[in-house]
């Protein structure tokens, strides 16, 4: 066993999947929002919806492209770096990812092409249908990924035969409480990401006094959706905590910073876990039975502490402990913003409240941070297992992987990803800064002067701010 190659492989997987998830989590929400916009336009006939649609479609195009290219890597990395895992769990994980590809990717890819290039080639209903199919495809993809990952968190429905996971009950693998609390949690997180990016963009334009009609629609729809969804999200988050408590005591103990078994248990709000001496420094703790109440919905339940788990089965305690708190903190901040913003919006005072507009504008990283830290909690908290309780990460690696190969691949991954990420985010920033330049009134299509291949050369078609009046 080559421990350096193992460490490098883990860093590489963490890095590539962290990079990847940023884009799908954004595009899943955005695809659903685009479908709503296109449907609204067909129903109401208001051109402003078309302007907003075209604007966000341009951004969607860039983010979707980055998601696609970084996603293909994931389909290969199980085999390149984790061949022992992929051979053992292939009979379970392979079919799940096959269904993901079959049901989601081709659907997305085909109708994405229609979305970007086919506006003039298909009737309006087929265009709306294409938008809905892209949204459906992204949702299917999220579903199968959550089934797959949930099986790694809580393996079920299999028997071991000759060192291979042989599935014997697919209903247990797909229809279990773990999947059905984690899948909605992820889906809602994506919708919230979309909602906050849209609201933040709207807030920016309101602050800049630009795109009057568009900015208000973005701001209100974004904050309003978030105001409704965040409470639901908190509920599903609580359900996810429930599965961790039931099936993954070591992860739960790390998240809670709980060293000793307690019955009923207290709740550590903030602390610095001192792993060496098995204690928390600077702890702020709620007394019992708050811990039992939060973890087990009970006043009296006993909760497991790390001391009753062998240290070789501990996750790196500090990471899940803090990442969980950062996730919850982001969630609470978003809840406050969304509720306050929606309340002010009902009172017709939102546009005058510059502080809240600034906060909304600056809030766009929050959903991304929440998603990443949530995944860090789930994945790092699962360690040292790759399939919880059955297969250790150290035993899952390609046995003959050398440090040299792992170093080369990690370095080039970092270089290429940094390169495309910098340009990608810069181009998205520039698209947003330029704004929804377009006309509020549709012109005949033949009037478009030059062929457009990518969405983005609308920048050239409508040079700087030929915005045709904000008030419709």
């Amino acid at each position, binding site marked *: 066993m080559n421990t350096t190659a193992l460490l490098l492989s883990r860093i590489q997987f963490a890095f590539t999947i962290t990079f990847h998830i940023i884009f799908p989590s954004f595009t899943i929400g955005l695809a659903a929002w685009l479908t709503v916009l296109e449907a609204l336009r067909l129903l109401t006939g208001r051109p402003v919806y078309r302007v907003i649609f075209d604007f966000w479609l341009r951004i969607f195009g*860039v983010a979707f*492209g980055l998601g*696609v*290219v*970084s996603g*293909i890597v994931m389909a*290969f990395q*199980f*085999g*390149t*770096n984790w*061949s022992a895992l*992929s*051979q053992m*769990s292939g*009979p379970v994980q*392979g*079919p799940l*990812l*096959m269904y*993901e*590809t*079959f*049901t989601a*990717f*081709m659907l997305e*890819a*085909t109708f*994405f*092409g*229609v979305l*970007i290039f086919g*506006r*003039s080639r298909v009737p309006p209903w087929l265009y709306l249908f294409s938008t809905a199919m892209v949204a459906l495809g992204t949702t299917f993809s999220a579903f199968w990924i959550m089934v797959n990952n949930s099986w790694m968190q809580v393996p079920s429905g299999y028997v071991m*035969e000759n060192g*291979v996971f*042989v*599935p014997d009950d*697919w209903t247990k693998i797909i229809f279990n409480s773990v999947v059905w609390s984690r899948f909605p949690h992820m889906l809602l997180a994506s919708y919230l990401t979309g909602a906050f990016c849209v609201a933040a963009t709207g807030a920016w334009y309101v602050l800049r006094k630009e795109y009057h009609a568009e900015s208000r629609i973005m701001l209100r729809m974004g904050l309003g959706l978030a105001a409704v969804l965040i409470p639901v999200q908190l509920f599903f988050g609580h359900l996810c905590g429930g599965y961790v408590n039931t099936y993954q005591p070591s992860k739960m103990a790390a998240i809670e910073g709980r060293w000793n078994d307690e019955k009923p248990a207290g709740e550590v709000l903030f602390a610095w876990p001192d792993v060496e001496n098995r204690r928390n420094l600077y702890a702020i703790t709620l007394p019992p039975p708050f811990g039992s109440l939060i973890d087990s919905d009970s006043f009296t339940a006993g909760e497991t502490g790390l001391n009753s788990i062998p240290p070789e089965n501990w996750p790196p305690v500090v990471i899940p402990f803090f990442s969980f708190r950062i996730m919850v903190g982001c969630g609470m901040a978003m809840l406050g913003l969304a509720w306050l913003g929606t309340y002010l919006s009902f009172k017709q005072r939102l546009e005058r409240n510059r502080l809240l507009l600034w906060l909304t504008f600056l809030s766009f990283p929050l959903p991304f941070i929440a998603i990443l830290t949530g995944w860090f909690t789930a994945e790092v908290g699962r360690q040292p297992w790759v399939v919880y309780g059955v297969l250790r990460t150290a035993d899952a690696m*390609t046995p*003959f*992987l*050398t440090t040299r*190969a792992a170093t*080369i*691949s990690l370095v*080039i*991954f970092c270089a*290429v990803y940094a390169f*495309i990420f910098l*340009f990608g985010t810069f*181009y998205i920033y520039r698209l947003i800064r330029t704004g929804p330049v377009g006309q509020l009134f549709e012109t005949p299509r033949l009037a*478009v002067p030059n*062929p*457009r*291949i*990518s*969405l*983005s*050369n609308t920048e050239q078609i409508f040079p700087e701010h030929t915005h045709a009046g904000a008030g419709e």
Partner: protein
Amino acid sequence: MVTFWILLLAMSILLYVLLDGVDLGVGILFGFTNGEVGRGAMLSAIAPIWDGNETWLVVTAVILWGAFPVVYAALLSAFYLPLIVMLLGLILRGVAFEFRYKTQRMRWIWDLSFAGGSLIATFIQGVTVGALVEGLQVTNGQYSGGDFGWLTPFAALCGIGLCLGYALLGACWLVKKCDAVVRDVAHRQIPILAVGVLAFLVLVFIYALAEHLPILRRWIDRPYLFVFPAIGAVAAIVLALSILRHNDRWPFYTVAVIFISAFGTLALSFWPYIIPFVITIDEAAAPRSSLMFMFWGGVVVFPLMLTYTLLSYGVFRGKVGTRAGNY
């Protein structure tokens, strides 16, 4: 059930080679093209379909993982570095479609990443096939060839051969989809590339004879295999005729037939092995419960995927830029 999945796997690989082969080939030729008009037209010819085409690579990977996990684990780990370089090539190729239209000043970067990414990805795909034909070094059921064991002169030759092959496929697609200068240039490139591919095939044959590659023995044992090269030869003759007659549609279909016959030749000379002379298809198959679960995906969703593919080719049929709205 195993036969069903090996057929689906073969179909996915073939579709990937034919469809993304076009994109990668256009990418390679893109590097030899100057001027925004030509480059723009070349991109338009593949922009709406490349993403779907590339998806067949993922389809291949996941069928391999689900139906033949042993092979997925063995091949992907053995080809560690080349696969990762290929993926990065595909990434650079993929982002270029959107990114190059975001900038004027920096466009050369994305043009370079488009052509370079296509070239790298193609070369490595060829190298991989070449290394498989030559045989991987395996000890006690585990790959033992080292980090660069796949890099042999023969594999490199196959890499160059596939670059020529994809470029030929791409040129034929451009003739089919484009007008004016782009079509005429591609028309002139086809005979050169076709001769290049032919020379490559002759070289491979000589090399195989000289090195007594194990695959050659199978050809002597199974003379009926020659039906595929025969089909390929007929297609090559039709290709030559269609070039002489300046036909826009036939070159693409004949080159596709040549690719199919080459693929058939290779697949049948591997049979019944899935990694030549190491693991057979039956040994590699996943447990029955996995294959049965996947079956519905294979009979219901796979045809749906083919339908989407046909749909998008239908929506974007015809020559680029001849209709209003453009793409």
